[in-house]
């Protein structure tokens, strides 16, 4: 393949790289080639920043490595090539009474990507991250070897690969566990709240009885209204339920959004409308799993709504005691008028992932979008970085496109140990940036 512009989901980071898309795992040695360029795997490109990009390097595109090697429908274990998407897995397992142990906000990510970014979901407080459920994986290294890694075999490399952002090699296949479900429905409940304290209280009281909890915050609400939002909690519906969910119409965004869409009054109005609509429809509802977990998947190419300049996603987590930091952040964001349509908030539990560079730590996490309005938004994120750093928190690399080397290295002191496992033939735009190259 010639030099192509593969992009990441945020549409900001630019990279020119060659790409090769092997159809079979036996074609991987040839795809790795003579290693004249640094290599990096590329799945479905849903990372926001430059974690999945490799400027002046070569991408190993995995979308054709999409075979399921075995599915143990008795014990809920699936073994597949790393290019299979979570959507395809769901298509196979849900009708047989199983579900993904951890689901991110979109089903269009590959298994390899799910492991490399050690993704988390609305049930982190119960199940931890995706890496917690991986039994073993196979890694193709640039020296031509293929290594099987598990908790009891090449354990160090296993721990480095989970959350390793593709830097330890190309994940070719993986085996992971599933959770049993009796139907494709979710019993969900929506509860409005009016302060961050209320959000924390709701999270704590929901932990024991709800598998899934998440909140949406209105970050553009100012003064006394700051900290209001919608809390959503749910469980897989129990018992045999008849009725298949009807698949919903999918919309496709074909054009880049115009700038006025991102202006403060429009965003504030959207947030306000979203908040009040959900207040009016608050309460219990039985919904199909697809819109509960993947609401944005119904809008193909929603990232284009942010226009040609793209957007940054900023996700951080801070310990519980530092709720004040979250308050201060909301204050800064609402003052800067650079807020986002959606701020997702969640409480992380204490299940620690085996991944060395895994992001979630017990505490509170917020995920925000910032339209790319240039230097001013970069400066804002630097200020936020400082707050997070002083609070003893960290920012999620899988979504990052701009954090400075010193900041990254402070957030993740394990980076030194991790770098021992980085394959010398592999690199990414992200890694070169945070290593100060």
């Amino acid at each position: 393949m010639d030099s192509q512009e593969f992009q990441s989901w945020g549409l900001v980071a630019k990279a020119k790289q060659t790409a090769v898309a092997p159809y079979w795992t036996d074609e991987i040695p040839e795809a790795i080639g003579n290693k004249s360029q640094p290599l990096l795997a590329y799945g479905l490109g849903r990372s926001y920043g430059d974690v999945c990009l490799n400027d002046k390097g070569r991408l190993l595109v995995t979308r054709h490595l999409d075979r399921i090697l075995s599915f143990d429908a008795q014990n809920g274990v699936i073994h597949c090539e790393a290019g299979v998407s979570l959507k395809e897995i769901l298509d196979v397992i849900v009708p047989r009474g199983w579900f993904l142990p951890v689901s991110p906000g979109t089903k269009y990510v590959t298994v390899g990507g799910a492991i490399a970014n050690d993704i988390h979901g609305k049930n982190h407080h119960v199940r931890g991250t995706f890496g917690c459920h991986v039994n073993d994986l196979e890694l193709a290294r640039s020296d031509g070897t293929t290594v099987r890694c598990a908790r009891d075999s090449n354990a160090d490399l296993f721990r480095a690969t989970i959350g390793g952002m593709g830097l330890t090699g190309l994940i070719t296949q993986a085996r992971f566990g599933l959770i049993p479900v009796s139907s494709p429905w979710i019993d969900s409940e929506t509860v409005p709240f009016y302060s961050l304290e209320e959000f924390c209280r709701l999270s704590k009281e929901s932990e024991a009885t709800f598998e899934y909890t998440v909140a949406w915050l209105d970050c553009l609400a100012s003064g006394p209204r700051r900290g209001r939002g919608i809390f959503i909690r749910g469980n897989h519906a129990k018992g045999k339920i008849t009725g298949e969910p009807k698949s919903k119409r999918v919309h496709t965004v074909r054009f880049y959004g115009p700038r006025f869409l991102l202006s403060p009054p429009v965003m504030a109005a959207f947030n306000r409308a979203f908040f009040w609509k959900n207040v009016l429809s608050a309460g219990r509802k039985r919904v199909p799993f697809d819109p509960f977990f993947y609401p944005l998947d119904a809008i193909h190419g929603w990232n284009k709504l942010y226009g040609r300049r793209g957007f940054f996603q900023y996700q951080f987590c801070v310990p519980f005691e530092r709720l004040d930091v979250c308050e201060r952040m909301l204050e800064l964001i609402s003052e800067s008028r650079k807020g986002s349509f959606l701020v997702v908030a969640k409480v992380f539990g204490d299940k620690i992932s085996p991944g060395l560079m895994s992001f979630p730590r017990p505490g509170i996490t917020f995920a925000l979008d910032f339209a790319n309005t240039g230097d001013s938004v970069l400066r804002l994120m630097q200020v936020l970085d400082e707050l997070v750093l002083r609070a003893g928190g960290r920012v999620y690399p899988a979504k990052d496109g701009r954090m400075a080397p010193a900041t990254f290295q402070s957030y993740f002191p394990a980076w030194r140990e991790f770098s021992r496992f980085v394959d010398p033939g592999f690199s990414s735009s992200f890694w070169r940036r945070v290593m100060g190259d």
Partner: protein
Amino acid sequence: MNVIITGATSQIAIETARILAQPGTRFLLAGRNPERLNILCADLKARGADAAHSLVVDFISESFDGKLGGVIENDWSGRVDALIAVQGVLGDQGEFESTPHKAYELYRVNVGSVVEAALEVVPYMEKRGEGAVIGVSSVAGDRGRASNYVYGSSKAALNSFFQGLRQRSYGKGVRVTVIKPGFVDTPMTAHLPKNSLYSSPDVVARDIVRAMRSRRRFTRYSPWFWWGIMKIIRSIPERIFVRMKL
């Protein structure tokens, strides 16, 4: 439903098999690479097929020699519902002109093995009074063009063969359909620059499955708009066509 797919490791075959991989379906996949066939069989079973077995045959140098019939009789109690022949190599027209004997290989794969498979399997379908044969041809077979006439002529041979087979089996419950894809984005065309006419293998796969289930058409262009394009190409008088650079 018992389905035989020859050339099973091709992308079009894989996408077709995935659509058909439901409980109640059993597959026999014939191809050259045993590891890839095994991976495919595992994938189809994981996705819901009752069974999937492989038959390793290198179409360049080997024949079926009754092996397809053997499986139909011994494992499937004589029942075969569909034969989908997908195998094909594109070759390099320039290479054929410099090394003519390479054309034999292309003909063996594209024509020889397809003809052998169809002749071996159709009697079982006629005996039961039911079955579908789908041959994957190409728009390249509609008219010989300088840029790929060895490949194109092999597909023209298939068109004619299936036409005759259709006439022979008519009234015996066997449907013979020819699928003519245009440009498809697969490993076969990986080295060619892509344009807006390219479609993906799952589009062709859906047309193949439609052909299996429909009694209506004998030939399907995939996607449908190639019917119009080839009608025009075929209608150009030879003395004008001969001067064109196609």
